[in-house]
């Protein structure tokens, strides 16, 4: 039996077979099935209330419980540092994507970003919502309200960056690497890396504040990999179909995947007398040097590569899946012990010291954050076929309506002005017929969810990750974008 019909990869085939009509073929390979982040594999949460950590620590690490706290902290940071050390003006917040990706991670919404169009699911219940006409469950509408709040907070002293509407990606990146943005949608290391070159003890860099109001993107089991964002197929016209199929088979071969992660067996690792995989002395030395950023071009892993050196869509399985020998494919670096021993980032260390924890993610759990373990959005979305031509045309018109009012919403001078534009926009979307398209999508979603959700929860339980109960995820009242309890 080929490797892609065994183990974790097999589930892909099973899902599509259950959802298909029995006559349709099997066309696609997913990219990176497995856990997208485990509880100890990253140094800090990537999204949430992200800010310049050096300025935040100066303020004494004030707790951030919601958007209002976040804006308040950003404004205090701006008051203390209207200019960077190099003399560039600072701004409350910078973004290049206004669709609201970052807001999905806030507990006001509990949304998964990856569903198609602006149809987004609750990460705990997996219910799908219409993000066009349901502003209480919409990243886009929440993003508009968030940027409008920032505009009104910073319009008088120039701390709202008006260039976010016009600047290029390069200009945005330049401001970010200079540290001109006090808050960001996501952690970015460019400022830290630049500052660290001249100051080994620097705390200049972007980091997310541990908060109970942030959902951590960890323990996410991607049954169908990075779908619907990415999938692979073999071209129908390829003269090399058999060879291409063999390549996919290698990409699902646990022995090959082990070697991608750990190097060649017999060189950098091997089994000991008890049958346990162990790094060789040479392998451990080379791996440690590689992981701590060696610049030696002859380093084994610099030449061989590693899991993280693969393009983002390779291979089909992730490094945190279990090899038939009972150990993780990457049996060294995916452990708390390795994370603690190799934690060199000053910001990560500072978080651990301030919050009294071993690893930064511990601080997020300690403050009450929950993770994405219940979320099946990517897998469900992957199984849903595209809308038909008329529906896609209508959604394109809906997108155009939103784009048309985006600037008016962000630059609205009052809440009433914002609400007026919002209500008129939703009226136009309803008149267009968008809710009927959503209803067709919702029916497909629910049919897929009925199959996918139990499968994901089963895998999670098998791996010792118990899905959250309503009592756990309904731990605090959700807050509408208007700030009223739901």
């Amino acid at each position: 039996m080929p490797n892609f019909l065994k183990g974790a990869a097999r589930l892909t085939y099973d899902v599509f077979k259950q959802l298909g009509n029995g006559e349709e073929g099997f066309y696609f390979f997913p990219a990176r099935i497995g856990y997208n982040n485990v509880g100890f594999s990253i140094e800090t949460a990537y999204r949430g209330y992200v800010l310049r950590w050096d300025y935040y620590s100066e303020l004494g690490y004030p707790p951030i419980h919601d958007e209002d706290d976040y804006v308040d902290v950003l404004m205090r940071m701006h008051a203390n540092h209207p200019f960077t050390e190099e003399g560039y003006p600072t701004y409350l917040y910078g973004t290049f994507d206004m669709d609201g990706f970052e807001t999905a991670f806030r507990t006001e919404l509990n949304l998964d970003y990856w569903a198609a169009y602006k149809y987004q699911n609750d990460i705990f219940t997996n219910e799908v919502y219409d993000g066009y006409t349901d502003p209480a469950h919409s990243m886009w509408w929440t993003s508009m309200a968030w940027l409008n709040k920032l505009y009104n907070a910073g319009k008088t002293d120039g701390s709202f960056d008006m260039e976010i509407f016009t600047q290029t990606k390069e200009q945005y990146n330049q401001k970010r690497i200079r540290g001109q943005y006090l808050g960001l949608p996501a952690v970015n290391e460019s400022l830290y890396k630049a500052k660290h070159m001249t100051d080994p003890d620097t705390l200049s860099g972007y980091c997310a504040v541990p908060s109970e109001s942030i959902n951590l993107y960890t323990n996410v089991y991607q049954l169908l990999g990075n779908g619907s964002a990415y999938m692979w197929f073999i071209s129908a016209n390829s003269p090399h179909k058999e060879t291409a199929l063999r390549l996919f088979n290698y990409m699902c071969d646990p022995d090959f995947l082990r070697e991608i992660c750990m190097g060649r067996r017999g060189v950098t690792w091997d089994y000991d007398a008890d049958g346990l995989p162990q790094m060789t002395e040479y392998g451990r030395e080379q791996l440690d040097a590689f992981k701590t950023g060696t610049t030696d071009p002859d380093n084994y892993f610099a030449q061989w590569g590693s899991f993280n050196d693969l393009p983002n869509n390779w291979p089909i399985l992730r490094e945190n899946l279990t090899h038939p020998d009972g150990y993780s494919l990457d049996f060294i670096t995916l452990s708390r012990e390795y994370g603690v021993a190799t934690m060199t980032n000053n910001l990560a260390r500072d978080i651990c010291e301030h919050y009294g924890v071993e690893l930064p993610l511990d601080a997020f759990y300690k403050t009450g954050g929950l993770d994405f373990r219940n979320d099946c959005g990517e897998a469900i979305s992957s199984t849903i076929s595209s809308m038909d031509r008329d529906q896609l045309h209508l959604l394109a018109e809906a997108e155009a309506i939103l784009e048309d009012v985006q600037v008016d919403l962000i630059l609205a001078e009052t809440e009433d002005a914002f609400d007026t534009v919002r209500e008129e926009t939703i009226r136009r979307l309803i008149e267009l017929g968008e809710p009927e398209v959503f209803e067709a999508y919702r029916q497909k979603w629910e049919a897929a969810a009925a199959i996918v959700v139990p499968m994901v929860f089963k895998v999670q339980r098998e791996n010792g990750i118990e899905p959250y109960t309503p009592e756990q995820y309904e731990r605090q009242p959700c807050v509408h974008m208007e700030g009223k309890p739901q």
Partner: protein
Amino acid sequence: MKRILVSVLVALLLLPAACSACLAEEDRPVLTIGDVSDRSSKRVDGENQLGLWRYLEDQLGVEIQYVYLSSDDYAAGLSSGNLPDIVATRICAKLSQGGCAADL
């Protein structure tokens, strides 16, 4: 001394694979991979190719050529059917209807 010895052993272990690759490369079929993404390549092919990709090529007996496709290139490929052997895509459902993906 021990480190030098290990390095020599590693070189000897890698040598047969490297030589067989040199001898076989000219006759190998080219397997093209198209990635509809603007993410940067990580030494998949060419002079600085990572060892793991070279090893995979040897196992399969092919030369891998990895290209990043723009949205326009991809759309043109979908229309003409002239696509790389393997493609990474975001638009799955449309493809099976269009007949561009092989039924496996």
